[in-house]
């Protein structure tokens, strides 16, 4: 790769995606094998001081491909990005998003707004999903420093971007996680409430959807839990997460596998 110089009329500007496309760095759009490993359930819950995200760790093809995938990553200090769908494309997508936000910041000496980041991803999703069976469905959540709130953006398969003011889920465990969230969500939910509800919704998805990995007490692998607040992206300690899922598991064991009349 030589020095990438452009004439003013052909300059891709501060967008890394547009530069990468013009320089041939992106994956060519093509047909693919739809049985490549899929990544599954991720949940985002907005609460009064930010956003909580919970994601399972399993990648599933015809069999379990991996048990310790990280589906939530910090795209930058105040933004988290999560993926579902084809793992290969999802990981590339996260890499593209992380690099793009930093690239923009270096090129222009100012950070992209959260809304700008959300909109930027739309055409990338559209390009991938409308031209390939290897669908990727991301979820973007972050702390918006200009409005001092946590915000969640979800996407449809064609790249449409929608802001959610309560919660959002992506992946195959969505019906189960979503039901739990709809029953348990309150507009005034706090951090502890959001963490508990997120963990419970993921547990439900793991319990009912064969492609979603719940807590793995045998291998000591637990879902990822993160918070994004005015202090930035923070991942909860594995011990803390394990304790939360152990509690849910014990309660379920006591009541014979059902929630037992209340949301727990």
């Amino acid at each position, binding site marked *: *790769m*030589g*020095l*990438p*110089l452009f004439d003013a009329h052909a300059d891709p500007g501060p967008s*890394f995606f547009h*530069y*990468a496309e013009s*320089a041939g*760095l992106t994956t060519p759009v093509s047909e693919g094998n739809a049985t490549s490993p899929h990544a599954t359930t991720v949940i985002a819950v907005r609460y009064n001081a930010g956003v909580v995200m919970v994601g399972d760790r399993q990648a599933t093809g015809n069999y379990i491909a991996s048990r310790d995938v990280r589906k939530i990553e910090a795209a930058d200090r105040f933004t988290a990005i999560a993926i579902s769908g084809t793992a290969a494309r999802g990981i590339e997508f996260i*890499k*593209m998003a992380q*690099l793009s936000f*930093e*690239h923009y910041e*270096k*090129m222009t*000496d100012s950070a992209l707004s959260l809304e700008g980041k959300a909109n930027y991803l739309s055409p990338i999703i559209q390009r991938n999903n409308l031209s390939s069976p290897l669908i990727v469905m991301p979820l973007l959540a972050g702390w918006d420093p200009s409005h001092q709130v946590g915000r969640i953006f979800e996407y449809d398969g064609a790249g449409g971007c929608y802001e959610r003011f309560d919660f959002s889920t992506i992946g195959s465990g969505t019906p189960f996680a979503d039901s739990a969230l709809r029953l348990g969500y309150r507009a005034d939910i706090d951090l502890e409430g959001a963490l508990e509800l997120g963990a419970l919704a993921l547990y439900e998805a793991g319990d009912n959807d064969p492609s979603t990995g719940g807590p793995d007490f045998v291998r000591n692998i637990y879902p990822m839990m993160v918070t994004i607040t005015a202090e930035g992206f923070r991942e909860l300690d594995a011990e803390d997460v394990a304790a939360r899922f152990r509690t849910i598991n014990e309660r379920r064991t006591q009541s014979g596998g059902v929630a037992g009349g209340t949301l727990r």
Partner: protein
Amino acid sequence: MSNYFYVSPEQLIKDRAEFAQKGIARGRSMVGAIYDTGVLLVAENPSASLNKISEIYDRIAFAGAGRYNEFDRLREAGIRWADGTGFTYSREDVDARALANYYAQHLGDMFTEGQKPLEVEILVAQLGSKIRPTKLYRVAYEGTISDEPFFAVLGGDAETIRARFAANEERIHPLKETLKNAVDALAGPDRTIPTADLEVGILEDRGTRRTFMRLSDDEVSELLS
């Protein structure tokens, strides 16, 4: 058919060099220096938004002197090159020497074949790691690349500033002394540069992946006091 007057290659090169030097001399100078725990870049720059110093990559910074539009385009190309290389291979494969070589080739090509030579000088600074050394690569308008052991001066009055800075800098100092020396060298004996007219950036390990940091006016004043 048009008529060409014969111009000897020596004369052509001389004319082009003179043109580039004149252009560079119109801009203000900058100093890059290695200090005990990092790399310092200081430029005299009355504008707070048209930067001469910039982050290129995790451990690489850029500084330009001369015509702003020309070196800013090279800065953007450098960021694209670095991000593209890191995207294709790995972050640790992004090397300042490779980038400095590309700048040198481009400036060399423009000097001999371009409509006019670029009126810029470029500094590519790299903070060392386990696999790479701390380096200052200076690239001149005609594509000469030099590996400067302790410090480099870019811009108009480079020789005078270099002599002033060298007088106080026979060994590597902490940031405070190095900044003071650099600012004194830029200012000369008869004037002082207001802090607001200084653009200062450093590369230093702070436990994060990205090592570039701009110093605010307050931080600069504090260090200079």
